[in-house]
Structures are given as structure tokens and as C-alpha cells.
């Protein structure tokens, strides 16, 4: 990046605009969203080229450009966590087995009702578990099953994939191989 041309910042380069948008976005930015940055129409291929360039620029630094379910975002490299944890020692705790099992059932069997989850786990699902997952924006109610009582149907969100650094549900661990054994 040539600094001279940028000192006055009269008209920022497209790459600078895309990079700044990605650095400041509160959620991953899709290609379609990134296109909105420009008044003139920008080709998808050109945008991808810019993203590649930005990715290269950040090679070997503390943060990295990553593609997740909803689009592109900057995130820290895992190696940096040991340093960052020194600033905020309170790490979010790992979730209990009950929470993770419930999440796994919703992820692999979605959409499911509370009854479905209870059937698989063989134990009642505490409301607190579903509330925890909803509070993280990892699951949501996507409808209700057309049976007496019309129970809510739960499914996982794009936010879950974002938080787990995945682009699709297909990338969930072991889904393919495990399902085949069924």
C-alpha cells in the first residue's frame, strides 16, 4: 500500500474501503453487502481479488481475514489468545454436557421439538438450557409442529456457525461419518 497517495485520504482506494468495512463490521459481511460500499457497480471477481489481497496483507500478523457462514470477517489468530487472555482473564466457561448435548441434537436433527430432544437424551430438558442457547443466539424457534400442543420447533442459527468459524452446517464435526453409521 503506497502511503504517499493516501496521506490526504481524498478518495480512499477500494481495498482500503473494503478493509475498513471488515474491520468495523459488527457481523460478517457478504459479497453482496460489500458491493454496497461502492457507488459504481463492482464485479464479484474484483471484490474477491480485493479480499485475497487483504488476506495476503495480513499474513503472519495477529488477525486474519476469514470466511464464515454469513460472509467475511476479521478475527484474531488462535495463537494470540494466550496474550489477549492476560487482559481479560475471565474466559467464557465451557458449557455443561447437558447444554452441548442439547445443542448437538438441535444441530444434527433440526428442526426438533423439546420433546424430540428429551426423547434422545432420555431426560427432561431444563428451560434454562434452551434459554442459554437462545441467549447466545445459537438456536431459534423456526415454527411449530402441527401436533396437539403445537410444540415449538428449534433450529440452529447462522450465528452459531459464525461463532464456531464454520461456513455451513455440513462442516460440523463428524456429521457425515456418524450419520452413515445410523
Amino acid at each position: 500500500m503506497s502511503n504517499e497517495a493516501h496521506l490526504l485520504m481524498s478518495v480512499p482506494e477500494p481495498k482500503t474501503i473494503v478493509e475498513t468495512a471488515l474491520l468495523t463490521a459488527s457481523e460478517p459481511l457478504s459479497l453482496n453487502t460489500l458491493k454496497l460500499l461502492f457507488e459504481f457497480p463492482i464485479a464479484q471477481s474484483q471484490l474477491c481479488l480485493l479480499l485475497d489481497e487483504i488476506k495476503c496483507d495480513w499474513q503472519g500478523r495477529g488477525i486474519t481475514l476469514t470466511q464464515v457462514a454469513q460472509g467475511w470477517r476479521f478475527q484474531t489468530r488462535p495463537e494470540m489468545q494466550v496474550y489477549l487472555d492476560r487482559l481479560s482473564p475471565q474466559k467464557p466457561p465451557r458449557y455443561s454436557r447437558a447444554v452441548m448435548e442439547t445443542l448437538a441434537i438441535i444441530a444434527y436433527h433440526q428442526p426438533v421439538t423439546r420433546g424430540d430432544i428429551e426423547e434422545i437424551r432420555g431426560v427432561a430438558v431444563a428451560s434454562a438450557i434452551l434459554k442459554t442457547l437462545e441467549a447466545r443466539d445459537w438456536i431459534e424457534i423456526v415454527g411449530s409442529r402441527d401436533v396437539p400442543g403445537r410444540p415449538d420447533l428449534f433450529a440452529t442459527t447462522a450465528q452459531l456457525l459464525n461463532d464456531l468459524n464454520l461456513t455451513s452446517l455440513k462442516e460440523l464435526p463428524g456429521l457425515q461419518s456418524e450419520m452413515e453409521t445410523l
Partner: protein
Amino acid sequence: MMSEVIFQPVIVCASLNGEPIQLMPQDLYIPPDALELVLDTFSGPLDLLLYLIRKHNLDVLDIPMAELTRQYLSYIELLQQHKLALAAEYLLMAAVLIEIKSRLLLPRPVRITEDQEEDPRAELMRRLHEYELMKRTAQKLNELPLAGRDFEVIQVLIDRAVAEPLPQLGLLDLKQAWIGLLARARINTSHVVYQEQLSVREQMAHILRCLRIGEFVSFDLLFDLNEGRAKMIVTFIAILELAKEYLIEIQQDVEFGGVYVKRSSSFDERP
């Protein structure tokens, strides 16, 4: 966890993978005081059952049902003092196990038809398998890098304070505000708002701007002959209106002499 449990040998006759064993595996017996331990360790009766099966590499049908059920029932007595909801599920599992066992003991009627009675073990096996699958994937899920725990998402502050957008003004907004006022004024008849020629008001402001304090301006100079008759009339009315409101003084020293206009003597101009 289970190794902390007090072992109590129970002599039974069972077979493990076809080989008869004299002693029941010791840690199958879970004393009541290990109850809380069990509740913390297992996420449900399926989990406990799965543990027992995997631990001893048992076929689910070789578990001594009577002994297991006796243990279950003794826990449930205690569970009722703690978590009733859990007790019901552990009890249900014990009932399921007994049912399976009893159905297996019953002589099966020989049937030739296709819709042969399903193996009573099948449903439990299916559930156990499915549960085990979910249990494993939950573990894998929990090992995935998680935003906020294993890496951070970047969000640099957007400095909006620097370029805070100012409210936009639309002609329609202005009109609506005025109409709203007029409508209100109609209701509150204490003040009569009347429609005036805008240009008069505009011209009044214009004339005031032209006049310097303490300085007489020729009446003629306030008129621009190029503006046309209508505008000149407006200017004339504006001057009269200003005079009426004591904003200007109009002076004529000699009959048929020049007319001069100045701001009122008390007129205070801002610095």
C-alpha cells in the same frame, strides 16, 4: 468418578460374551451416598446405562436387571428428597429394563407371518446408539474453537462523533409544521394567525438588513425599478408595515422633499 465408589461384591451368575462369570462387575453397584456424584457425572439414565455397557463391554441384555433395578429404586428414594424430575426418568429407565427382560423371558409364539414381533431390545438399542452418537458429537462440538473463547472477532470503533449527520430539512416538513400550527391556532382562538403575503414579510426582513443604524436611507433607494410593479408595491407595503411596528422611522423634512427611512432610534444592532 466411578472408581471412587465403594465396591460391594455381589455374587451372581451371569455370562459375559458367552463366558460365565461368578462375580458381578464391582462398580456396577453404586451406593446411595454416591448419588450426587452420579447426578453430576451422568446427564441422564441413558448416559448411565451407556456407561455401564461400555465400561464392561456388556451386551445390554446381560445386565442383571433385578440387581440394577434394586439399586435404581434405592436411589430414587433419595432422589425424591432432591430432584424429583430426575427420579422419574431414572425410574422409567428401570421399568423399561424390567419390561425388556420380562418380555425376553416369556415364550415367544411362533409366527410365520412377516410382521413378526420386534425384538424388545431393538428400541432401547436404537435409543442408546442415537444417544451415544449425540454425546460424541457434543464433545466434538465443544472442542471446536469458539469465538470469544478461543479467538476474538474484530470490531474497530466507527468514529461517528466526528461526522454526526445533521437533520435534513424538507419543504414539506416546514409546511406541515406551519399547517399544524395554524390548525392549533384555529382551536385556540386567543391568537389569530392570519395569512400574509409572504413577500411582504420577506421584504420587511430585507429592508431591515439594508438599513444601518443611525443612517438615513433615501426612500427611493429602497425600491428597485427593475423588479416590476408588483414587487415595488410589496416593498411599499413592507415599509408601511415596518413603520407600523415601530421598526423604522420615516421622515420628510420639507413638503414634497425627499423621504428618508432609518431604523428606529432605539434599534439595537447586534455586534
